[in-house]
């Protein structure tokens, strides 16, 4: 969403005419209202309902108290440590899933026999909830960082792997044949046709995986962790520090939005040729 706004403002800068600029600004405001109006209303409603006592303020504290808990947590550095450790866990797992899932998917998608042999087991693994396997990973790797990173890695690997395989398999064979008529060998065909054609599909997998990574991160941090944003949600609730709990929840939502935004921007840069933005 953000990129649309920045597009508008770039266009607005081009017109030297102040009136045009004003009209553009008006339009941007209207667009902002259209996009975020309901969200703002939601927070305003929460604030009013909580201070007026329509909602139990012990469960839903006013937004300003959540915000100040967030601010205190961030400025004191307490939450920053949690963010850092959470990002590290999710980041390592996601990077490993990307580093293994994409090359493996590209390879598997190209070779029919490999893909056919591995597909049933992949489907089985994918359908088995990573959370259900978490106890197994804990038994194998202990309750420390390794099992946490591994469960996230496991859950993020499959969306990336399957999306990559799907992307490679769906490359139009007519385009490959066209490349061959110009004398392209296997490697060139892969580099110039198969790989770029798979990029949109790979991004679908990446974005799905990023969401999954955060989901699993929170779950993993709720069991046997003493740091991390997910741990803070549980810990604050346990100690009845409800504003801090909501602060941590919003932080997680924000991390999810930020991850998705990074991927969207990257996708738009790599897929400028495509009309599909999302």
């Amino acid at each position, binding site marked *: 969403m953000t990129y649309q706004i920045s597009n508008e403002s770039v266009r607005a800068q081009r017109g030297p005419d102040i009136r045009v600029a004003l009209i553009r600004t008006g339009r941007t405001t209207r667009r902002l209202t259209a996009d975020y109006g309901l969200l703002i209303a939601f927070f305003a409603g929460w604030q009013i309902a909580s201070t007026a006592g329509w909602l139990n303020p012990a469960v839903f504290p006013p937004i300003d108290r959540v915000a100040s808990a967030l601010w205190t947590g961030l400025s004191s550095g307490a939450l920053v440590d949690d963010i850092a450790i959470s990002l590290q866990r999710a980041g390592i797992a996601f990077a490993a899933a990307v580093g293994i899932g994409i090359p493996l998917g590209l390879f598997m998608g190209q070779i029919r026999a490999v893909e056919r042999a591995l597909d049933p087991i992949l489907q089985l693994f994918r359908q088995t909830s990573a959370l259900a396997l978490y106890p197994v990973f804990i038994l194998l790797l202990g309750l420390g960082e390794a099992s946490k990173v591994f469960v996230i890695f496991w859950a993020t690997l499959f969306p990336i792997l399957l999306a990559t395989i799907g992307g490679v398999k769906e490359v139009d064979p*007519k*385009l490959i*044949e*066209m*490349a*061959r*008529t*110009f*004398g*392209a060998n296997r490697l*060139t065909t892969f580099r*110039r*046709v198969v790989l*770029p*054609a798979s*990029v949109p599909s790979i991004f679908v997998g990446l974005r799905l995986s990023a969401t999954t990574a955060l989901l699993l991160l929170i779950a993993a941090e709720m069991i046997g962790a003493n740091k991390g944003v997910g741990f803070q949600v549980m810990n604050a609730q346990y100690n009845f520090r409800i504003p801090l709990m909501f602060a941590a929840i919003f932080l997680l939502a924000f991390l999810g939005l930020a991850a998705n935004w990074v991927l969207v921007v990257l996708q738009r840069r790599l*897929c*400028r*040729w*495509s*009309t599909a933005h999302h």
Partner: protein
Amino acid sequence: MTLIQAQAKGEVTIRDLTKSFTIDGQTLTVLKKINLDIRGGESLAIVGASGSGKTTLLRILAGLEEPDAGGVLIDGAPVHGLGRERSVIFQEPRLLPWLTVLGNVAFGLEVQGEPKSEAAERARHYIRLVGLGEFEGAWPRQLSGGMAQRVGIARALTVQPEILLLDEPLGALDAMTKMTMQEELNRIWAEEKVTLVLVTHDLEEAIFLADRVLVLPKAKGGAIRLIDIDLPRPRDRNDPAFVRYRRQLMSEFGLH
């Protein structure tokens, strides 16, 4: 380069070419002992009923398909598989959607190891030749069907083949665009001095573009027919002689 060599370039010799397919356990002989000599620089159209093997013949010439028996010689040398002296233009433009017009046209050259800047330079020349000079930065999705097909033609030309193989390249276009493109193909063929082998459903297109029209037999194993089109170029579709050729070709298919 001497004149004699120049004339010999792009000469295609087809000897006893036979090809069959197995469909559902049944063997279907599509091409049976075809013999044909295509002169260098000639424009040959291949017509025939649907399923008569036009595409199969063209794909064998391209090297995308191997014959069961017999073979193809190009400039006297037997060919197996694909080769740089041949370019194929398919019915669909087959553009790479992630490359601009320029990128697509330069693609063939780049694949063949030409440095990027030289490939781009030559590509620009052919983009102008097909009349798309303004569109070199456009994405394929922004092009009309006719424009996309022109890009495909330019891409095939940049590698400067001796032989241009076209399988119903204008089949998907509307009647008006088709006629314009036929005129362009006529001009390009004359300018580039390539051997043109054009598979088409359109008898008028065959007469408009070809020196000779090859009619594939309807009954398998029947004889092929060759019809010389002896008309000055550019050809006039309303010329009585043109119309006579059309009638003659139609009668080959039992049409009136």
